[in-house]
């Protein structure tokens, strides 16, 4: 177990505040006062974590273990200020857990040998090198982002490109030396192990190639010591690294999300790339050619990744790892399921009906679903693909797609068609394992279309909409998210959650984001690896939140700021009763199944032809 922390400058406000919070919430229901500020009287609004983050007057004395380094010296290295690099040993999750369990709130787990200054950070000369190296690299990266270091290296073509592009207001063409670029809340970069840029959320990859080179240098330097770099904390940013096979994903976030959450989001990005290329072909490509430019294969897919990252920021489905289905009278949902159940063809494995980007129903092939369960993340990727490729909605799309959690190495063939042109809100998605099945699958669509016309389903679907929290009939309750867990009768069911529309005061995008940030904060506390909580009562600045996780469900609620704890508890009881009553409408209760082939699971999992398909699709170039 080896953990090293390097301190360049001690600014501890984030961690300190988190500590206070933890102390305040160890007995979450005991005290009504805002957990983050035990001295504040009840009713006075405590700042939520995002605000705490911005504290500019921390108490460094509390962190006497660390001697802060001369400010000037630092600023010459790292213009943004404070940097903490955290390296976790490669020894696996169990040892990581150990380390985190031993931490006491006031004494950072990461500090086994507190450095008393930068010069004598570690006693081991190697570590000293690593420290300086890391710091220098980071500082360099910053300088380059500012445009100080890049001038000589970037080609005139690229600079011309940037200049021309700045006229286009596209994120892709942003000037990466501008302040506005640095202000983005969350940057995501994908690069290859050779340090080749693959994707950047903002700005062109070419312009960022030196920055990505620095990232790769960090990763490989730490790797050379048999370690894995996981994160870097600075005053304003959290940098999270995720290495998956030959790809390195990096997130630079100024949001208040936990490292764990950010890593989860990077994983979604990775899965989306896999869904387009498959894991097998990506490994094969890089085995053949270490410095392959993967953008050749991903060209044109940037919008899909952009769309995914926007969804991740704005849709709690990703945070909860559950799918959101459109509330629908159960008889209507059943009749839609039956329509899908009847329209089958050999090798069809999933039939999915979507309206307003939410699930209406899903029918699954019996034997396939016995083998592997359809994960919410795979559904999210499918929904994102549909959203991102909807420009030309009149046609019937036939495209290979991999469901990375289902099987990262094989392709399914997706048939996507809108049932209600020109509005294009109701979308049918049929997944087959047979590349040649387009006409047969398109025929299923005609049958579905016909049956839906006969039953007038489209106009019924058009009336379906998400519900208002007022329907619950609980005063003070502003919003909630409820995710039931697997129970025996719906084992292997797709994990779902339900949530009302966000209504006043969460109307503007900023307010919506603020509420989501609060939920993210609650979620990070509940799912903290070091100190998981079952129940949190959190008085925030403008609202009061209560999160509760049991063996049966996970619930996040948002109340008026002045609600009392007793009221909140009563409200939750009422809410749970309401959900129970409405669950047939809110959830897909018993996902129907069909049987299309004697042994489709084999063909989807391991058939040779499938494997060849995957080779065929990506990689004719090799």
């Amino acid at each position, binding site marked *: 177990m080896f953990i090293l922390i390097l301190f360049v400058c001690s600014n501890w406000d984030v961690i300190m505040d988190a500590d206070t919070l933890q102390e305040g919430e160890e007995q979450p229901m005991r005290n009504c006062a805002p957990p983050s500020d035990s001295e504040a009287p009840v009713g006075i609004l405590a700042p939520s974590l995002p605000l705490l983050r911005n504290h500019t007057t921390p108490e460094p004395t509390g962190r006497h273990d660390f001697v802060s380094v001369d400010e000037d010296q630092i600023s010459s290295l790292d213009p943004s200020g404070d940097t903490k690099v955290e390296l976790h040993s490669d020894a696996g999750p169990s040892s990581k857990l150990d380390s985190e369990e031993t931490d006491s709130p006031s004494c950072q787990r990461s500090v086994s040998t507190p450095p008393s200054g930068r010069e004598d950070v570690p006693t081991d000369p190697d570590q000293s090198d690593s420290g300086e190296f890391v710091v220098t690299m980071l500082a360099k990266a910053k300088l380059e982002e500012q445009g100080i270091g890049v001038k000589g290296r970037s080609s005139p073509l690229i600079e011309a490109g940037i200049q021309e592009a700045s006229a286009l207001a596209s994120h892709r063409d942003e000037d990466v030396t501008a302040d506005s670029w640095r202000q983005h809340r969350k940057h995501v970069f994908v690069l290859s192990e050779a340090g080749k840029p693959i994707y950047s959320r903002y700005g062109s990859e070419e312009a960022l190639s030196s920055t990505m080179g620095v990232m790769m240098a960090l990763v490989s330097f730490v790797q050379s010591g048999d370690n894995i770099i996981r994160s870097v904390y600075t005053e304003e940013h959290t940098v999270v690294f995720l290495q998956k096979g030959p790809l390195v994903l990096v997130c630079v976030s100024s949001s208040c999300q936990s490292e764990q959450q950010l890593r989860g989001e990077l994983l979604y990005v990775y899965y989306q790339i896999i869904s387009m290329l498959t894991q097998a072909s990506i490994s094969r490509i890089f085995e053949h050619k270490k410095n392959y430019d993967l953008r050749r294969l991903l060209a*044109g897919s940037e*919008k899909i990744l952009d769309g995914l990252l926007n969804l991740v920021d704005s849709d709690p489905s990703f945070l909860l790892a559950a799918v959101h289905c459109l509330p629908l009278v159960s008889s209507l949902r059943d009749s839609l399921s039956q329509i899908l159940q009847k329209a089958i063809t050999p090798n069809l494995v999933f039939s999915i009906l979507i309206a307003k980007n939410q699930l209406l129903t899903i029918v699954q092939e019996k034997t396939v679903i016995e083998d592997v369960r359809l994960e919410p993340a795979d559904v999210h990727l499918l929904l994102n693909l549909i959203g991102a490729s909807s420009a030309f909605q009149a046609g019937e799309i036939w495209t290979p797609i991999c469901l990375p959690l289902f099987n990262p190495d094989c392709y399914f063939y997706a048939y996507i068609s809108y049932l209600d042109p020109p509005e294009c809100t109701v979308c049918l998605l049929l997944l087959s394992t047979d590349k040649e099945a387009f006409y047969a699958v398109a025929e299923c669509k005609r049958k579905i279309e016909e049956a839906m016309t006969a039953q007038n389903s489209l106009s019924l679907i058009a009336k379906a909409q998400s519900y208002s929290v007022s329907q619950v009939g609980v005063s003070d309750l502003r919003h909630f998210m409820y995710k039931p867990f697997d129970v025996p009768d719906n084992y292997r069911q797709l994990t779902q959650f339900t949530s009302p529309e966000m209504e006043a005061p969460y109307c503007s995008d900023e307010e919506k984001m603020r509420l989501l940030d609060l939920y993210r904060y609650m979620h990070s506390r509940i799912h903290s690896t070091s100190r998981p909580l079952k129940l949190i009562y959190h008085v925030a600045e403008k609202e009061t939140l209560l999160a509760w996780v049991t063996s049966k469900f996970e619930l996040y609620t948002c109340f008026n700021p002045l609600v009392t704890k007793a009221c909140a508890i009563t409200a939750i009881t009422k809410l749970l009763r309401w959900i129970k009553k409405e669950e047939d409408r809110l959830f897909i209760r018993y996902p129907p199944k069909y049987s299309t082939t004697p042994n489709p699971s084999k063909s989807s999992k391991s058939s040779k032809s499938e494997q060849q398909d995957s080779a065929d*699709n990506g990689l004719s170039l090799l």
Partner: protein
Amino acid sequence: MPDVSKMKKPDVKVVLLGDMHVGKTSLLHRYTERKFKDTTSTVGGAFFLKQWGPYNISIWDTAGREQFHGLGSMYCRGAAAVILTYDVTNWQSLSELEERFLSLTDTANHDCIYAIVGNKADLTDPKAQLSPNSDSFSEDQTDIVEDRTEPQVLSACPTPPASPTSLSGVVPRKQVSREDAMALYGRILRYKGLDEKSSLPADKMCFETSAKTGYNVDALFETLFDLVLPSILRKRHENHESPTVDLEDCRGSGKRVRSSCC
């Protein structure tokens, strides 16, 4: 039994091929919807059924991305016509046709016809900036005015490819002449082992179009449809041996007519 064959079997298949961002989807969209709008990169392939007189023509709009290259030969199987599309302001897009896309057409019909189409002609050719249709003229003209103030938007691709073209400056230069396209046509015939004299002349099969203004777009598709007519008739004739087909034909075509006029 009627359930099984309700789908209108298309009479003939036309495939659009070409590098990404050359405007395949925009061309088709201009032809079927009479509009030009922003498109996103096509995923896989998109299938459209076009009612053309009494015939049903299926059109496959394929993705130009290398990612989907492997599917190309599947989309081309049994095609009666292939539209090889390039961007007149991008030489690379023409050479990609020969390097990457020509081999995909191996699965097409033996008598498949080939058209070579240089899109985005409005960027380099003043006459392509005027719409041939007077009814949509006003709409198109606003487009053009917009172009003058914001010339970069002209490239008509959401993500300009990182080719020298998109970086070279404000006014794109024509990089591919019609002669280049015609020369490619000749090479395609040779690749297919076809005799130049008995095949359709290059002059007739090379088009320069603009999906943005609609220039030459109808001419392209209608010329092609006229040319595939013999192959439609032959296929229909073969189908006449089956007595059930006529019934579906009536039913199916009624439906198609509705969908084709949207």
